[in-house]
Structure formats: C-alpha cells, structure tokens
C-alpha cells in the first residue's frame, strides 16, 4: 500500500476530488496547509509598513491506495491540480505498513 500526499493550490481541490472519484479512489483526507517552494510570496502594505507574506495558503490531500494503482492515481491527481503556473505544488508517495478500518478491524488492502 502507498500513502500519496499532495500539496496543491486550494482552488484546484474540487477538480482533484472529482478526478480521483472518477478514478475509483474511495476516500481522502484534506488539511489546510501553508508553505512555499520556488513560488515567492507576496507583499502587503499597512500604513506604510511592508510585510512579506512568504507562506502561501495550500491544501494537503492524503490518499491511501494499493501499490499497483498508485502511479495511475498520481498521474490523475497531477493532471487535475495543474494550472501550469508557478506554485502548483508537489505530490509524493511513501510505502505504508499497516492500515486498519476502525469500525470493523479489517486490516491491509481490505481496509482501504
């Protein structure tokens, strides 16, 4: 099993969600996040005092998938999140040892 984590632009979340549902992904977890990569922040001015806001609002999407579908899901996700402009985000995956469905106690791929 794999945990796919994506940090993307907040306004792409709906497209990503729809694309993943069409791909057969059953569930996901979304967290508000902030950060920056090569994208620079912006400057705000309050009574002449300039503030550099370098942490930009993002959302972090986490999905558990089986090994064999991971690459496909990542491709779909990347395509849905892409705007082509700087600051589109990152996606990565890591191996997962155990998954348990809390309600039934099922383990492994059955619990996804």
């Amino acid at each position, binding site marked *: 099993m794999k945990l796919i984590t994506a940090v993307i632009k907040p306004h792409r979340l709906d497209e990503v969600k729809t694309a993943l549902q069409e791909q057969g992904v059953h569930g996901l977890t979304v967290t508000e996040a902030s950060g920056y990569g090569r994208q620079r922040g912006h400057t705000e001015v*309050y009574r*002449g005092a300039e*503030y550099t806001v370098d942490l930009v609002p993002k959302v972090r999407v986490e999905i558990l998938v089986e090994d064999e579908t991971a690459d496909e899901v990542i491709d779909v996700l990347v395509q849905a999140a892409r705007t082509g402009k700087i600051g589109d985000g990152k996606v990565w995956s890591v191996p997962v040892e155990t998954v348990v469905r809390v309600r039934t106690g099922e383990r492994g791929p059955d619990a996804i």
Partner: protein
Amino acid sequence: MPDGFSAGDTAFVFICAALVMVMTPGLAFFYGGMVRVKSTLNMLVMSFISLAIVSVLWVLYGYSLAFGPDAGAGLIGNLDFLGMRGIGLNDITGTIPVTAFSAFQLMFAIITPALISGAVADRAKFAAWGLFIGLWVTVVYFPVAHWVFFFDGGNGGWLGDRNGVIDFAGGTAVHINAGAAGLALCLVLGKRIGFKKDPMRPHSLPLVMLGSGLLWFGWFGFNAGSALAANGVAGMAFINTQVATAAAVLGWLAYEKIKHGAFTTLGAASGAVAGLVAITPACGSVSPLGAIAIGLIAGAACAAAISLKYRWGFDDSLDVVGVHLVGGVIGSLLIGLFATGHVGQTAQGLFYGGGFEQLGKQAMGVAVVGAYSFVVSWLLGQAIDKTIGFRVSEDVEVAGIDQAEHAESAYDFSAVGASLGRAAAAPTAEKKVDA
C-alpha cells in the same frame, strides 16, 4: 423653562451627544481591528472602560472642574457643582439646559482618554490603564477643557476665552491632548516585543472600516453639535466635516499610491480619521473650500507622519501620534491661515486679511496643550509604572493579553482542547466566572 430656552436646540444637542457617545465604541472597533487576534478584546475594552470610569468621575467632580465658575486665572473650575449639585432642571446655558450641555461635554471627556489607548496597544495592564484614565482626566483633561472650552465673558478659560485660541470642537483639548499623552505613554511603556521585526498586521480590516465609519458618523455630533444650537454655524460645521474628511481620504490614498504603489483600505480609513481630526478645531471658522484644503493637507501629512515611529524608534502602536497629534496640530494651525472671519467666529486668518495674529494664538494653544499633556502624562505613567506596574509580563505579551487580563478570547477557531468545567483554567479567571 426660562426665557431663551429652545426646544429645537436642546433636541439637537441631545442627539449630538448620543452621536458622540457612539464614537467611543466606534473607536474601539477602529483600534480593535488594527491589533493582532490575541489582543483584540483588550483593545476593545480599553475604549469601553473609558465610558464607565469617566462618566462617574464627570458627575462626581469632572463637570465642576471643567465648567464650574473659574477658580482663578482661567486655569480650573471651582467645586460649586460637585456631584452635579446646584444644577436645576430649569438652568440653561445659551438656549439649552445645563444638563444637556453637561451630557454633550461628557462624551468628549470619554473619548479623549480612549484615543490614547492606541499608543499602548498589546502591552498595558488593564488595571493600570483604568487607573491612568481616572488620573489623566482629573489632572489633564478637565483642566484643559476648562482652558479651551469654558467661556464666561472674558473670565473663562485662559486659552479660549481670555486669549482667543480657536478650538471649535476639540483640536487641542481632545486630539493634541490625546496625541501628546499617547507619545508620553508609549515612551514610558517601551516598545512591543518584536517591534520592527515581527509582522503586526491588522487582524481585521472590516472591523477597522466599521469603526472608522462609526467615527465619521458620530463626528457630525462632535463638530456640528459644538455649535450648541441647531443653526447655520452647525450647518457649516457639518458640511465642513464632510468635505474635509473626504479630501483627507483622497490625500492619504494619493500619498500611499505614490509612495507605496497601492490604495489601501487601511489608508482610506486612516485618512478619514485624520481629516476628521484636522477639521475638528477649524470647522466653525473656515469655508468649505478651506475645509477641503485642510483635509487634503492633513491626509497627506498624516500618511507621511506615521513612518516617524519607525525612523525614530518609538512604538506608538496604532499611530495616535501620527494621526491625532499631527492631525490636531495641522488643523489648529491652519485656522491661522484659513479662518474667514464670518463663518461662526470673527477671527481672520492670514489668507483672509487677518495677518499673523491668529496664527500666533493658535501656535501658542498647540504648544501649551501639547507640552502640558506630554509632561503630565509622562509623570503619571512613570508613577503608575513604579507602583503597580504599567506593562504586562513578557510571557503574557507573547501569549496575548486577552487570555491573561480578561480570561477570554475574541474568536473561537477550534473546539479542540476546550472542555466545560466549573473551575476555569486560570486562577485569576476563577474569581470572575460567576456560576
């Protein structure tokens, strides 16, 4: 009612008094939106507490000290009206009851110390602040109001009645007074932790806009009401207030666009307040064109002045000095240039054939009130700081003053970690929570 009483004037002054009252909660929102989330409530209640403290002191002795018969040399009123005794229902001043005049003037006494709170945002102990308000109105505001606002046929206050300093609605008594005190207090308390390093962005510009809107609205009572009658002078003061404020918004925004490249919301709100401050002393003596000139100058000059705190390193958190002291000085001095001699007052400024005489008087009023307020406020601040302490601890300041001083927080961002219990978490809060 005796001869000379006017029901129309009286009704007008009561409405104006109520309008001025709403300026203080308006100010609370104006300031409250400009601070960080963690000290929002403290900022709001620092203004609100002034309504409570000053109202009581006003009846006890404030009205008597400010507007009682002069006790000598135009410096202070006597004690004839302690507890408002001796003021009958039928006593009138001009065409309105003394009670109406007293209520109207009370609202000025309330908002003036509230204005100072912006200079010490985020770091003053609430009890120390309350004590400061009580002492400050007693030894600074009440006497200065007497100097400037008490007229008694040449036997009244020494600045206004005896020396002809014009302050129609409070440029010296309210704004220079509060601005100089704000400068003194921020020097006594010192800089906020992180001043010039940490971002201290306003947490809610919508609150700032709400507050400045309420201030603008209430200011018609402040300025037009100072005619103390529903007459042409009130009308002129009203229109002057509107156009000077409008011009100051434009002046501030123009300065900002040129200097910083953006028309900011905070700049528009700040420009409005700067214009209101500047036209306050002048609204009864200049024409609407003069008012526009005063507003434009004040808007741009105050926008420039607020950078002084970064340059000179004093942490006047919400620019009480840059807006109220500078705006008040500009408005008071420009009377010496723009007074027409036939709006509400007869003195003429330099541009209307009056020479330098009135300008000299205005400069004296500015210097005297500014210096007196600065020195006495600094002494009061030091006295409080050396006894009960004026500033909260470093831990409290970093964590946010709302929790430590008021056992509350302005916004509930998450229910995680909160639980219902009889005993509140902080021991100080326990006493305040009444089961």
